Every structure is written in C-alpha cells, then in structure tokens.
C-alpha cells in the first residue's frame, strides 16, 4: 500500500470494515510512514472528539415518546369512528364498554412496561419473593402462583403495585435471556372467564384474559411470541 491507498481506505479503516489482509497491509504502511501514522491519529482524535461532544448532550425523549404513542393509537380510533354508522351508535356504546376499557388498560400496561422496564425509569420495586408475595396477597392473589407463572428460561425479578386506567394492579417483571416480560394481575370481583386476546401497542405485544377470579395482562416485545405463550400458561395456572 502507498500513501494514496491509505488516504482512500481511511474511512473503512476507521469503521473497522477492512478485511484482515488489508488491515495488516494498512498497519504495515503506518509502521513505515510517520506522516500517514500522524494523519490517522489525527483523524481518530477528531472522531473521538465528535463522539464525546454529541453523546454528552442531553437527549430527552419523554415528550416525543408520548407523541409517538398517541399518533400510533389515534389512527386506530379514527378508523373505528369512520366505519361506524348512525344506526350502530347503540352497538358502538356497548362495544365501547366491552372493548375500549380493556384496550385502554392494555395501552397503559404497555406504556408502563416501556417506561419502567425497557427504559428503566426509576421506581420502587420489591425484589424478594416474600415481599412480592405480600403485595400479591393484598390483591387477593396467592403468592404460590407467582413463581409458577415464570416461563421457561425466565425468573421472577421484581414486583410492585401500580394503577392502570384507574385500577390497581400487581406489576410483576419476569426476566430471561429473551428480555423482560411484564405481568399485570388484578383480582376480579365477579365475571365470566374470557378467552385470550392480543393487541399490538407500539413496539409491545399485549395479551390479556380474565379467569373467574383474576384479570391478567401480559406485555412483551412485539417481535416475540412470549406474551401469548405466557398468557396460555397463565390462563391454566390462574
């Protein structure tokens, strides 16, 4: 390699895209050419300064995340309104009661998962099983099921009480090599069991169902089938 080659290939060298052979030739030339060596050191220094300058800036995405979530949810609601006709208002009102309330709760659950689990917003969590079990007891849920709910490869990591759409839920986080899954549980006063339903909320997939005594919402990454898989297991345990 000569000095011209070094100059031409410098972007690939700095981005570590040179294959082993060309990288070795590159290094050989630098070892024998002080001018090229100084040039590369300067370019690497400039890169480091740019990285430091830009990465040290504070980037607050909280308001943007809210805007994105709203813009994703809104078209779905607009479509529903557009397809409603006047004669179906009564049906729509009934549908609102059975569909919209759980949907809003699921969106809130996905939002909690995103902020508190994925983004790691600071919250007070119970980390040991007895303490989490006590929280579960307050929700009328047996602590014995908490560990059994963990899917294969996951373990119960933490828990706390939270409010979704104005209702108290027990928020459990199960962690494994495939990421983290949030499980939201709440005791039901009455009602008939329902099948498992899923809804996509932004980058999360939410599965939810009711047993005779418990309402459960499970949130996982949209790319994974974890939410649905865990919901099937949980529906049997709960």
């Amino acid at each position, binding site marked *: 390699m000569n000095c011209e080659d070094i*100059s*031409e290939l*410098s*972007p*690939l060298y700095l*981005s*570590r*895209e040179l294959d082993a052979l060309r990288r070795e030739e590159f290094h050989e030339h630098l070892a024998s050419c002080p001018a090229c060596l100084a040039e590369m050191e*300067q*370019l690497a220094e*400039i*890169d480091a*300064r*740019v*990285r*430091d*300058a*830009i*990465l*040290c*800036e504070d*980037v607050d*995405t909280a*308001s*943007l*995340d809210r*805007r*994105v*979530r709203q*813009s*994703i949810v809104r078209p779905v609601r607009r479509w529903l309104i557009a397809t409603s006709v006047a004669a179906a208002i009564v049906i729509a009102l009934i549908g609102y009661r059975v569909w919209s309330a759980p949907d809003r709760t699921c969106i809130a659950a996905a939002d909690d998962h*995103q902020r508190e689990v*994925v*983004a790691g917003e600071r919250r007070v969590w119970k980390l040991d099983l007895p303490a989490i079990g006590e929280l579960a007891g307050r929700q009328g849920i047996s602590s014995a099921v908490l560990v059994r709910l963990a899917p294969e490869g996951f373990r119960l990591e933490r828990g706390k009480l939270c409010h979704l759409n104005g209702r108290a839920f027990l928020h459990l986080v199960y962690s494994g090599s495939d990421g983290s899954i949030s499980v939201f549980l709440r005791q039901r006063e009455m009602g008939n069991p329902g099948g498992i339903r899923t809804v996509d909320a*932004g*980058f999360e997939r939410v599965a939810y169902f009711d047993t005779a005594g418990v309402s459960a919402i499970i949130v996982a990454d*949209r*790319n994974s089938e974890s939410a649905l898989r865990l919901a099937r297991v949980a529906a049997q345990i709960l």
Partner: protein
Amino acid sequence: MHHTRSLLRVARRLTSDPEDLVQETMLSAWRGFDQFRAGTNARAWLFRIMMNAFHARGRRARPALVPIDGHDRAGGADISIAAEVAQALDELAIEHRTVLLLGVVEGFTCQEIAEILGVPIGTVMSRLSRARESLRGRLAPRCQAKEV
C-alpha cells in the same frame, strides 16, 4: 421507546423540527412493520426511513452555521470544547454532517450508511474523508486561539 434517542440525536443536528421528523419516522415504521425483515438491522432500517422522510419532504434542513470571522470562530474562553466541536459540526454541509453523525456518533459502517442513504459506498467514503478534513480545518483555528 427503542432507538428514539439515537434518531432524535441525529435529527436534532439535521433539521429545525427534529421531533416531527422522528415522530413521522416511528409512525411510518409502525405502519410498515411488515416490510421489516426479521434478523436484519432494525436500527439501520429506522434510520433509512428517517433519512427518506427527511429528503422526500424537502424538509427544512437545519442551516449550516456560518462563522463571521476567524476571531468569532475561536469563541470565548468559556465555551467548552464539546460545544466548539458541536458548533464546528453544525457548520459542515448537510451531507458531510450526515455521514459523520451516522458513522462516527451512531457507529454505522460505511456499507450500512450507504444502504441508509441509498448511495454507493464509494460516495460515503469520499464524503466521510471530506467531512473529517473539513472538520479538522474548522477546529484547528479554535485550538490555536485557545493556546494563545
């Protein structure tokens, strides 16, 4: 939300309405999620959507800052080095700024940048070289002024 921080960090240095651009990007990604091929680079895919949106709409680019003279470019003694580097970056032409942000700050390879921008890899390499050269030229007088 995944990757919004990276997208916003770059968008802030490209356009005067960065949050709108990233919001549009995320909405497009959500609507076109079926087009994403599992196993490929999701981050590069999002940046490609953002750069397409940026160019397709003829979005008002954040103007390159033009220094008044050498003395002003040197800046006051209280301006931090990081602020000077950021200002020098903002003075670069938009295509030079873009490749530096994608390659140096966000860590994309030249090949990935070429795919994000839809240009040949040779174009990316030459833009990166010119961008680094241009940045060095802008930073040198500042450093000399500091040393005086």
